[in-house]
Each structure stands twice: as C-alpha cells, then as structure tokens.
C-alpha cells in the first residue's frame, strides 16, 4: 500500500511550487480588477450580424468614454464594453449613439459601480473570510481538536493562495462573483478535510497498540480515498456542465470553483493530514523531553 504520509515532504514541495509563482505574480503584477473593484461601467450589447468591432470602438471612443482595448467580442454578435463610470444620461447616450451608427442594439446588461462600492466589497470580503475562519476553528476544536482546526485553516489558506495565484498569473478578471467563489471554496473544501479527520477520529478510538500516528492517518486516507474521488468527480460534473452550458455571467465564479475543488481535494489529503501528523509528532517529542 502506497504510504501518503511517508512522502509528505514531496507534497509540501509541490504545494510550494504551486503557491510561489502565484504569490510572485500577485506581488509584482497584482490582479486584473473588474469594475466591481475599480468602479466604472460594463455594458454588454447584442448587435446585428456583421457589425465590426471597429465600429463599436469608434462610437465609444468618439464619445470619450473608454480606451479601445476595453472592447471585447463575445460570441458572434455580442460586445462587452468597459468604460469609466457613466451617469445614467451618458449610458443612454452611448446606446442611442450605437443605435444610430450600427443599427439595432439589444442592451443585454449594463453594470454601473461607483468607486466606493469596490472598497466596501474588499473590506467585507476580508472580514467575512476572517469570521468564517474563526468560526470554523471553533467548531473543529469543539468537535475534533484544536490542532486539526489549525491545519485545516492552513490548508484552506493554501487553497485560497493557489486560486488567487492562478487568477493573478493569467490575469483573469476578478469581480464580486469571484469573492463569493472564494468563500464557497472555503465552505466546500473544508468538507474533504472534515471527512478525513472524522475517519482519523474514529480510527484513533480503536487504535491498536504500537500503531504510529503516521500509519493511523495513512490508513484513514486510504479508507476515505474512494469517497474523496467520487465526490470530487460528481462535483466536477456539475461544475463543468455549469461552465460549458451556464452562460457568461457565471463563468468566473465557476472557474474559480473548479480550481478550488481540485486543489481542495489535494490539500485535504496531502497537506492537512500530513501537517497534523507533523504537529502530533512534535507534541510527542516535547513530551518525551
């Protein structure tokens, strides 16, 4: 039987390799922040067949609302236009000018976000992350033990950093849905960790004499492996169908969840549990002294 715990240094190194490039990118390049953070307008329009991106660009530039690289084609007849924050009258001008220049325009969506909202969003997101982390730590300490709570939070932080890293490296736009996705990942990937620790908890009650912590956790990992894979797969099914069939507005959200679910399964098995073994071994050493 392959021993997951014995090779834990390898898993730690893989985790570091996953985190470091993202961390570097976050520090040097930051994120591609959407209007939810920066403020501005995002206008999505459906126009007639054959309208060229240059025509749309000319209108937007002519009005002095946006830079040219902020117009994007989506699908065959849809355009996404990012502009500075537009007043209601300016929005109306944009649509009526477009109608005059390129023919019929169907306004699919127009999001306007003031600069204050972005700040509030960031503050709220960080606040809710902290509160959720504390509450989970309390719950796990109550139902399991404090050290398992700590490694769970560390593993969650790992998941968070990987997802943030991917979004920074590929400069995928970050919006308020992304914030919700991060919180969902936290709520979801904690499941994996709990199921494994539940097995550890149960096995340690019936622990045989002389069985090491490493073996105990390794057996627990093997016993929960099929469940982890099966659940992971069924969640991936749902997410992939949502990603491919679910429409554009949810895409970032689903993408973040996809990465989060995969990395969450990884860190549950190969970070949280081995880290707990390390903490336990240290505890033993301290007691032996």
């Amino acid at each position, binding site marked *: 039987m392959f021993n997951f715990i014995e090779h834990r240094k390898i898993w730690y190194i893989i985790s570091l390799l996953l985190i470091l490039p993202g961390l570097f990118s976050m520090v040097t390049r930051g994120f591609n922040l959407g209007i939810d953070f920066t403020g501005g307008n995002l206008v999505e329009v459906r126009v007639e067949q054959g309208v060229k991106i240059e025509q749309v660009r000319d209108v937007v530039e002519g009005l002095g609302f946006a830079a040219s690289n902020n117009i994007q084609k989506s699908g065959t007849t849809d355009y996404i236009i990012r502009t500075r924050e537009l007043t209601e009258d300016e929005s109306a001008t944009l649509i009526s000018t477009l109608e005059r220049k390129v023919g019929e325009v169907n306004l699919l*969506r127009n999001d306007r976000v003031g600069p*204050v909202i972005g700040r509030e969003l960031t503050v709220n997101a960080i606040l*809710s992350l902290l509160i959720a982390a504390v509450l*989970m730590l309390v719950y796990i300490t109550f139902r399991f033990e404090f050290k398992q709570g700590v490694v769970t939070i560390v593993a969650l932080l790992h998941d968070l950093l990987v997802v943030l890293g991917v979004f920074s490296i590929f400069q995928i736009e970050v919006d308020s849905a992304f914030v919700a996705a991060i919180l969902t990942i936290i709520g979801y990937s904690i*499941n994996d960790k*709990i199921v494994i620790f*539940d097995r550890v908890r149960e096995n340690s009650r019936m622990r045989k004499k002389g069985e090491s912590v490493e073996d105990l956790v390794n057996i627990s990992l093997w016993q929960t492996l099929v469940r982890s894979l099966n659940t992971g797969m069924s*969640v991936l099914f749902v997410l992939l169908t949502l990603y491919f069939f679910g429409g554009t507005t949810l895409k970032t959200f689903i993408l973040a969840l996809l990465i989060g679910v995969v990395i969450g399964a990884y860190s549950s098995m190969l970070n949280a549990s081995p880290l707990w073994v390390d903490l336990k071994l240290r505890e033993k050493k301290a007691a032996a002294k």
Partner: protein
Amino acid sequence: MRWSKILAMAAIILAIAALGITAAVPLPIFKDVAWLPWANQTILGLDLQGGVHVVLEAKDTPSAKVNDETMKRAQAVLERRINETGVAEPVIQRQGERRIIVELAGIKDPEKAVIDLIQPAYLEFKNELGQTIITGADLKDALEARDPNSGQVEVDLTFTKEGTGKFAQATTANVGKPIGIYLDNKLLQNPVVEEPITHGQARITGYESLEEAHTIAILLRSGALPVQLNVMEKRTVGPQLGQDSLDRSINAGIVGLVAILVFMIVYYRIPGLIADLALIFYALLVLAIFIGIHATMTLPGIAGFLLSLGMAVDSNVVIFERIKEELRTGKSIRSAIDAGFRRGFVAVFDSNATTLIAAIVLYYFGASMIRGFAVTLSIGILVSLFTAITLTRWLLHLTAATNVVKDPRYYGA
C-alpha cells in the same frame, strides 16, 4: 419476495414521479388548474427575467440635508413612483443611513426606469423676477391628456386648496406678464398670463407622446424627491439576457443532474438507484420550499442549489462507501446498512455543519446577489441532511425488505 414491501416501494416511486411530472410538464387534464405545472410558481429574480438592481445614495445639497426624515420621505416618493408604473413585487429597502436599494424585475426598459426614478421632479412656477410662486408641493393631482381639438399632448395640473389660493393671487398680480414653468431647474414653458386663474388648474404642453406625458404626470403626482439621490451601483439585465440565463441554467441543471444520476447508478447500483430517487425528491422539495417561502430564484441561487446537490451526493457517497466496507466484513445487508449510516452520519453532519457556517457568514456580509446564493445553499444543506440520511436509509431498508435483490454485490460489496 415480499409483495407488500414491493407495493410500498412502487407507491413511493409513483408518488415522486407524480410530484416531478406535475412540477414541470403541462398536462392537458389539468389545464384549468392555474398553479400547475407548479414549478412555474417560482419567483424569478431580475437576473433571470430582466430588470435592474440599483443602490441609491442620498447626497447633502445646500438646499436639503440628509437625515432620517428626508430619507423616509424619499423612500415613500420612490415607492409611489414605482407603484404607479405597476411593476410586480418591487424591492425598496433602506440600507444604512443614506442608501436605498431598489430592485425591479420583469420590466421592459430597466435603464429608463432608473433615469425616471432618480429624477428629482421638482416643479416650480416662477414670476418674471425669478421668484418662486408655487411648487409641486401644492399639487393635488397631475394627469396626462390629449387635447381633443388640437391633438396636443399635455399634463393637466390640479392644485390643492391652498395652492389654488396662491396661484390665483400670483396670476392676478402678473396679468400680461410671463410665468415660467420649471422642472428640475429646466424651463419648460414661459406662458403669458392673460387673465387671473382662480379655478386652481394649469397645464403643461409640448410633449412628443402621451407616454412621455404619462411619465411626467407620475413623477409630479408622486412628489419631488426631498434629497438628491445618486446611483452608487446599478446592475441592469436586459430581458434577452435574462431569458438566455434562465434557459442555460435549466439546461445546465438538467445535464448536471442526469450526469450525477447516471454516475450513482453505475457506481453504486441498488443504493445508487435509491440515492437517485432521494435526490430527485430532494430537488423537488427544495423547489417547493422555495416557492412556499416566496423566495426569489436568482442565478447565484441556482448555483447554490446545484452546489448543495453536490453536497447531497457527497452525503450518500460517504455513507455508501461505509456500507460497502461493512458488507466486506461479512455483515448481512440490513445490518451493513444500519452500521454504514450510523458511522457515516457523523462525518456527514460535521462536514455539512462547517459548510453551513460558511453560508451563514456569506449571508451576513455578502452583497444582495451573494445572499441568494447563501440562502439556497443553506436550505439545500438542511434539506439534504434529511433526504440523504432519513429518506435514503428508509428506502434502502424497504428495498432490502422486498427480498428481490439478495446478492450483496448489488449493494456494492
């Protein structure tokens, strides 16, 4: 074979099927029953049928300061304006000290609705010297009309008793001179008073369409906004995008659900089939609860629902793996089911509890769109604890008791 148990099983399957069919399929025999198919009773959010979500913030101006009283009045004005347009189930909510959230779903032109909503609609009549003689506050009524002779569109104003007095006095004093009519400091008209007007009526003309006059009449009837409202955040979803999102979500939901159902049967056989039954019932139950509490289904709400579906599957997977293990130790089918549920339950409970904590935090700190996600996720988790534990277990026992399938291999061993 135990026929009574087989009949019970068949009855349950039929009941769930009936629930499912009445939910989604329009049946010709029930075509007079207004609430069937009952899934159509779901209230759709503005992102699924088009509409607008807008956060307005009041700003202090030299003439009007923001306080609790002016905010209440502003909210009342917005309510009157929205009610007059006949939008179904609008949301008009105070948030904090100086914000008001408005949500309008199912309207044709959300962008124009916002423009009308934030228009101060401050009506003034001014004399030649620029002094205000009467304002919109003295209005009793405003109605749009078309002059039967000239065909000209106009808004007819009726003043209150007090206003009638003021207007009579002012027109008497200004015979032969112009009186300007201003809306939001914009001069609409500047007619010359021919004779004193004592009947308390006036009219504004020069509108291009009856629709335009109608909008102005509503604004004037609802009264002027006591404070200046600025748009802080606005999310407009056109009806087309709403319909697209709804269609796509339903497709994604069906494809995702079918994928899970197939996976469960292929991998877990009899228990998988039972879990599928429970899952279908679960999906219908969540939908029914949603309709029952008049919750609004939004796009993030659907995502939360599908995620809770994943969690419900997870609960089953955890337990079925346990049942398999128990079967491998040589237990009978029935005692393996019991032991599997008993041991799996703790893990299922703890993992659902932690996710519930995250959902609750999300609800308290998230923006309104994220709230929809948190609500469905929470309801989904609570319902799934019931269906995945109680219902699945009961159904599994019932199946085992029918004695149709005796080979433990069909239970995953």
